[in-house]
């Protein structure tokens, strides 16, 4: 037993002797080639990612119509903070995130655990679960918009009619619109999460289940004491990813309701869009970028705090 090799010990890799760094050796060691390969990527990232980010930070301190710009200091930030719709948008985004957490977070975990227990047709179930992810999001939303038709002939209303429930207004109601959005979003995103959890379940050592079984644990105790603790690293990452995604929810409110009825589904990102593009005479790009910068800072802070807090508990 004592002779078993330690698999975690770092392998002995021959270390190349460090040469003196000068342009000639840099070129001879392939530095130029590496740079040439990286250049297109650096160029594309600069043009389409880094420059726009820098430009939007600059624009948040400007009043601009994209032709002429003037510096206005923190005016845009003040205007955003004074906008009564900001509170509504934050509350709506929070409500969406909460509903998505309650409805959308446990479902994929439960589904993945159940699916991992299935002995036959696992591939079929995985494919079925993943199918909504393959459907383009815009198509999915338009499809669900038809399902949510508020007339008695609507798909969901017809189904509800079979069990004696009167027609519901769904997207046309101030109270039902947001839950309706979350249900679609959960359906659309669950597949991806299920696949990740299924993969995570594979790495749980089967001996742990055997040991738990020997100790007399039932299925729920096995899930609670073996599966979930083993998956916590993945679960924590998925949680923060979901919080980040729901804080930036845009597609569903934009396509389903346009933020209505009566701002009931206006989220922060939709508000940013409205600042920039709703006004028919060119939008307030300064306010839009100011709110974007604030949201980005908030999310960065949130991620940092989250990882600090969970670092101790996580296995990863």
């Amino acid at each position: 037993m004592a002779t078993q090799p330690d698999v975690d010990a770092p392998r002995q890799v021959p270390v190349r002797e460090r040469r003196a760094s000068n342009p000639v050796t840099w070129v001879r060691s392939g530095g130029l080639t590496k740079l040439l390969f990286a250049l297109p990527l650096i160029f594309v990232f600069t043009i389409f990612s880094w420059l726009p980010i820098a430009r939007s930070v600059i624009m948040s301190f400007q009043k601009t119509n994209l032709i002429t710009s003037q510096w206005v200091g923190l005016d845009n930030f003040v205007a955003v903070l004074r906008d009564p719709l900001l509170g509504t948008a934050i509350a709506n985004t929070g409500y969406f995130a909460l509903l998505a957490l309650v409805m959308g977070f446990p479902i994929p975990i439960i589904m993945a655990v159940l699916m991992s227990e299935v002995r036959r047709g696992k591939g079929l179930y995985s494919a079925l679960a993943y199918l909504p992810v393959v459907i383009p999001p815009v198509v999915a939303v338009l499809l669900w918009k038809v399902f949510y038709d508020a007339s008695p002939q609507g798909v969901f209303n017809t189904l509800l009619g079979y069990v004696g429930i009167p027609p519901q207004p769904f997207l046309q109601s101030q109270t039902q619109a947001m839950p309706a959005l979350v249900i679609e979003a959960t359906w659309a995103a669950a597949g991806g999460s299920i696949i990740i959890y299924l993969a995570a379940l594979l790495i749980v050592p089967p001996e742990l289940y055997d040991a738990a079984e020997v100790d007399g644990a039932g299925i729920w105790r096995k899930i609670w004491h073996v599966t979930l603790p083993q998956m916590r690293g993945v679960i924590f990452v998925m949680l923060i990813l979901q919080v980040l995604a729901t804080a930036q929810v845009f597609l569903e409110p934009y396509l389903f309701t346009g933020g209505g009825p009566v701002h009931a589904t206006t989220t922060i990102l939709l508000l940013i869009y409205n600042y920039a593009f709703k006004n028919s005479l060119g939008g307030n790009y300064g306010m839009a970028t100011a709110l974007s910068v604030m949201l980005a800072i908030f999310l960065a802070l949130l991620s940092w705090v989250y990882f600090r807090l969970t670092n101790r508990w996580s296995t990863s």
Partner: protein
Amino acid sequence: MRSIGRKTAIAGVTLAAGALLLTACSSDDGNNASPGADGSGKKVELRVATFPPGADKAAYDAFAVQEKQFEDANPDIDVIGVEYEWTGPTFAVQLAGGSLPDVFTVPFTDTKTLLENGQLMDVTQEMKDLGYADKFNPIILDGVTGTDGNVYGFPRQAYAMALHYNRNLFEQAGLDPNSPPTTWDEVRADAKAIAEKTGKAGYAQMAINNTGGWQLTATTVAHGGRTQIDNGDGTYTETINNPGTKAALQFLHDVRWEDNSFGSKFDLDWGTINQEFAAGNIGMYTSGSDVYTALVRDFGMDPAQYGMTVVPMDGEDPGTLGGGDVAVISPTIDDATKAAAVKWIDWYYMQKLMNEDAAVTDAKALSDAGQAVGTPVLPVLSKDLYEQSLTWIAPYINVPLDQMKPFTDHIWEQTPVGEPKGKTQEIYALLDPVVQAVLTDQNADIDALLNQANSDAQALLDQ
């Protein structure tokens, strides 16, 4: 060394391909941005707006015929049609990026702000040279006149608000499609009959994307109210909480909640309400009198189902909200292109309004391509000239004029009222949620909603 050389070669090829791609992109942009840059001789390239995305092939066929006619008459000008739809968000970007057509159209509501921003070309002298500066309806010309007294565009089409109705649904509900409602009470009663007998929406109204505010303003005016007062000194006073707007919202509330004849869609805008109406799901709705063309061309409506009448008038000093659009020139083009642009506007938009030959040529081209000819509009010049032009093109008129008679017989009895001028679209956007609140909350407090909207709108104007 050999392997490094091969890697370098591959990297070089990759880089060259990338550079080629970028060069291709930038040269394309260059062509778009600078007319005549491809070295096509002395011809002036003129990029003109054609149709919004989604227009059918027949519309483009008709345009190709007109483009050739113009180029034959003006061999030094090369007209390039550009797909175009007026949307504010893209306008500033297109203007900044140089991809805006040289000639395009904007709605009356936005012209004033654009010219004040210096985003439109001054055409005062050109209009004088063409000899019809004094022929325009002065109220309409005022919309394109700056505070400096200069003119910044050619008003080319105007419309009044109309009540559009589905003749089939009227018949199915036991109503006479030749006697559409003439009062708001009759609209409500007919809507109820349609909803009860057919299960369709008896009456619907737009509520999102600023159209809710637009149509609330229209029904306000029809109820004798005004949402804004022009103080004449560049300032405006909001009067959204006026009895006309209250009556208009109360009507909506009653149709929705008392009669249950509004249907189940409270999130319609110009496009989707047209779609629903063309599909036979809506009995009546209000929109511009020129919407017939779009209903048939873009939304596939059966002309036999279509009916149009005037919007009922109520209260003191009621009117019909008018609107329209203006042909304008990009402020960034050079003098030669500007001269070509003015020629195009005169030929394509204006001459058919005042010249028999031009009117007949235009009507024939549209009719041959199966496009609507004769859709009722409001004259941008004089009423006499408009009626005369209709006699010129009479053989080509292909819209069901009989079904529009309730409108054409009575529209001249109504007072046209212009859209509010101060921050028009922004205030329309503020009114959208008011309309939505009434349609989605049975206990919505109309007075409170209007008072809030009024103070919000006034704050916008005072900024």
